[in-house]
């Protein structure tokens, strides 16, 4: 492991299993992510990596096993679950900005309604975040008026506004035009440098090499490899990973 050991795992998955009917999408997943760690989850489509990411804030329920965040077990539905989700930032493939609210309102909604921050305070904080991700001048616009890359950066700002302990990224650049991918990745690399704990499901191998502390390779619902980026990309252990990497590198 490359990062400094700083106590117990911030995100901990133990013996997690999930089925979609007959399909066993998550098989005995064990994963510990420590504070400040950046873990990139890669793998072929259908390998269960998005499901894994969504299970961490219970957007997907699990059939067996245990998930805890900062020592707290994921509660069932209700107020406690909402409180826990407030500590976990989530960035979606399709941005999911609130379509009827302005950029600024998208970022301030959570702090005002969940944390009880005053409107003035929330707006001040939101403007700082929007400036930081480079879309401060777009604040009064509606999401539909922004490009995909800009929308995704707003989505990152919206998640950061809750001051989360960990950020989940579920294929954040997969719905973007190629020329917009980098503007989003730059924000993520910066975030990683600042010490944010991140779990990133992505196909961007460049990001994995540049910013990840660990690469987790998933296939058929299982974690097949869990190693450093250098090790994974230069010396993959399993045939499944070798096969996956060889297909990527031919292009």
């Amino acid at each position, binding site marked *: 492991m490359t990062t400094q050991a700083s106590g117990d795992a911030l995100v901990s998955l133990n013996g997690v299993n999930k089925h979609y009917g007959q399909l066993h999408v998550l098989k005995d997943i064990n994963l510990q992510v420590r504070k400040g760690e950046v873990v990139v989850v890669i793998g072929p489509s259908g390998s269960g990596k998005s499901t894994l990411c969504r299970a961490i*804030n219970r*957007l997907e329920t699990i059939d067996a096993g245990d998930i805890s965040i900062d020592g707290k077990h994921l509660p069932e*539905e*209700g*107020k406690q679950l*909402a*409180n*826990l*989700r*407030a*500590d*976990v*930032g*989530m960035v*979606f493939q*399709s941005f*999911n*900005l*609130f*379509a*009827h609210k302005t950029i600024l309102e998208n970022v301030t*909604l*959570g702090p005002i*309604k*969940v944390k009880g921050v005053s409107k003035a305070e929330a707006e001040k904080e939101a403007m700082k975040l929007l400036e930081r991700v480079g879309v401060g001048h777009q604040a009064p616009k*509606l999401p*539909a008026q922004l490009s995909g890359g800009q929308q995704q950066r707003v*989505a990152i700002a*919206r*998640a950061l506004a*809750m001051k989360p302990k960990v950020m989940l990224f579920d294929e954040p650049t997969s719905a973007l035009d190629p020329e917009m991918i980098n503007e989003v990745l730059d924000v993520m690399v910066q975030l990683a440098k600042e010490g944010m704990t991140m779990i990133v499901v992505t196909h961007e191998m460049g990001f994995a090499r540049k910013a990840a502390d660990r690469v987790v390779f998933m296939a058929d619902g299982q974690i097949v490899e869990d190693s450093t980026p250098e090790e994974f990309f230069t010396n993959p252990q399993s045939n499944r990973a070798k096969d996956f990497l060889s297909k990527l590198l031919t292009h």
Partner: protein
Amino acid sequence: MDLFVTGFKNTLILFFFSAIAALILGTIVGAMRVSPVPAARATGTLYVNVVRNTPLTLVLFFFALGYPKLGLPPIDFITAAIIGLSLYTATYIAETLRSGINTVPLGQAEAARAIGLTFGQTLTLVVLPQAFRSVIPPLFSVLIALLKNTTVAAGFSVAEAGAIRANLSERGEPALVGLLWVALVFIVLVAGLSLLQRYFENKWRVAR
């Protein structure tokens, strides 16, 4: 002429209060029908299916004739008519709104939950505002139907616009002329609602 004024005043009173009550009740029932709680869903479905399948005349009949026999506090005819019209119209509002809720992408609710909003907050702050925007035209159709349904209350002793014609004919005025006047005023009232509909459609056009 006095009768004309009283009649349409009552029509507007019936419409105004029934519309507000039906919008509130319809929103609650619509929300119940998409709720994750099975009991709430079942209650909402039962209510919609029972009341919507009952002819409005029977609903009003119940409040005019059945209700006083139940030994509950007595209510005047106009209040009874408002309650009946509200309960009836709310089922249509609920169903209209439910179709609107289904047009809001699932990702909107997921994003709301992901920042820590509760189910109720997700519904009222994110899903319902977008659902309302997408069902403005059918919602106004329901309201226009309500406006015209107020005439049914005439059969139950509320002197509203529909009663004018009957009264005019009794006095020997030509029935057709009376009918035409009533129809004309209804067209004007409905045109007002249509203008309001257009206003909301324009105001919320940019939302998506």
